């Protein structure tokens, strides 16, 4: 295929200096990006939060009772925010109006790939 020759780093061939220089550049790039991030978010959380959020994907509370029960069970842990459009409103404090409710899922229709 047309294109530039790419350096596929194999253990035998790669000259030690080249990859070390590249790694140093990479590390400094990453660390400067990290500094940028920490400057914007001084209270940045760590990995366990990310993993836990990933495991709790899909969490939705179908009424205020459900939400309060979950809150009671997780007194010590940080409760993941429900998938509400307005993040400042908490289920149970806010009475939903028709405009606030998430749109109903559209009826099942055929895929556009097939038509």
């Amino acid at each position, binding site marked *: *295929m047309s294109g*530039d020759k790419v350096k596929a780093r*194999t253990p035998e061939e790669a000259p030690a200096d080249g990859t070390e220089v590249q790694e140093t550049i990479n590390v400094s790039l990453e660390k400067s990006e*990290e500094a*940028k991030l920490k400057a914007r978010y001084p209270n940045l959380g760590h990995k*366990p939060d990310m993993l836990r959020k*990933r495991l709790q994907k899909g969490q*939705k509370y179908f009424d205020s009772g459900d939400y309060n029960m979950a809150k009671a069970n997780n007194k010590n842990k940080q409760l993941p925010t429900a998938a509400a459009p307005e993040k400042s409103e908490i289920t149970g404090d806010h009475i939903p109006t028709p405009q606030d409710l998430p749109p109903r899922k559209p009826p099942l229709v055929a*895929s556009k790939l097939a038509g």
Partner: protein
Amino acid sequence: CCTVFYLGGAPGGDMQWCFSQVKGAIDDDVAEADIISTVEFNHTGELLATGDKGGRVVIFQQEIENKSLPQFRSEYNVYSTFQSHEPEFDYLKSLEIEEKINKIRWLPQKNAAQFLLSTNDKTIKLWKISERDKRPDGYNLKEDDGRYKDPNSITSLRVPVLIPMDLMVEASPRRVFANAHTYHINSVSVNSDHETYLSADDLRVNLWHLEITDRSFNIVDIKPTNMEELTEVITAAEFHPHQCNTFVYSSSKGIIRLCDMRESALCDRHTKLFEEPEDPSNRSFFSEIISSISDVKFSHSGRYMMTRDYLSVKIWDLNMENRPVETYQVHEYLRSKLCSLYENDCIFDKFECCWNGNDSVVMTGSYNNFFRMFDRSQRRDVMLEASRENSKPMQVLKPRKVCAGGKRKKDEISVDSLDFNKKILHTAWHPQDNIIAVATTNNLYIFQDKVN
């Protein structure tokens, strides 16, 4: 430069990729349900399946090559489409269960029908896709329209015959494998024994028999007793293509564990552990996130496996655990953008990767609807784009280049102009020929190499 065409898809010379087809809506307003979530060729390449966020599966079939127009290779047309999964709500856990199809895997064909496994976050289904091109005619007790005849009116008997009818392709769910995953399923993989398959979620891997739906064996469990100590999750798993006792699973820490089911019933202890060593002083906040493996694929030969992490593709020799034998940078220019990519969540995007038929070329997607191919034998790579602008029949794709900074050459695109909403996460390569399927957000592109 000359273009060489090899039967059977062996690479060599310069491959030139041409637009063949594009499926899906043209308009920019993308409905969430139309977002393509998986693409997979079957074992012969005759069928190409896609799954989407709306829980639907669309299967395309390759038509017989048009002999009178040799420059037009065979096209893929819609063969079957069905609703595989529907949205559910788990009231006990207050969990919304998305109908999005996470993976489709074809079973090898054993008889006239085709079978595939499709899965959402919680439930795996075995679908049978069969053709009906004959129907019975001449019932004794029924009229042609199905109404029952008055038995007293029948004076003679006849033998019903099968007469041809327009081809009908029917999809029916033959097995439903449910309630075995507490966490979200990310992978399914059919075993080379053609009888069993594995399914993996964030913390566990289960082994199923295709005939048995009411139980499965848990073969990997990395859930810590105290969830506060959770540091690693399973991101992908796959069975070895030939050794039915061997499978691998990858993790969010960039580690691949190979397990041998002959060693013990519960494969919590790996047989081999593949990890590239990293100097701890080189670690940044992003190191672990970008080392998370989003896809793992064995080569067809079974000798190698490929992993995809956020910035690179790595080829591992199963005989060498301490480092990959090849590393390819997919979009190195993103390293200086990690801060914004973290803010817009793109750093968590899960790109897949695939091998060509003879394991000489690997392919993976990127942003701005770019995708990349790395030719391992030729030590060449190319970046191409899937876009409607380059979709004239048999139009040759022009290589793309991204300028990381400084002076931008003509025809190059600056890294700041990249559209991070246009991501190619799913690609597939025909098992024998140089035909590839590339999924943008809601469109499926099919490209072929130029016939000489």
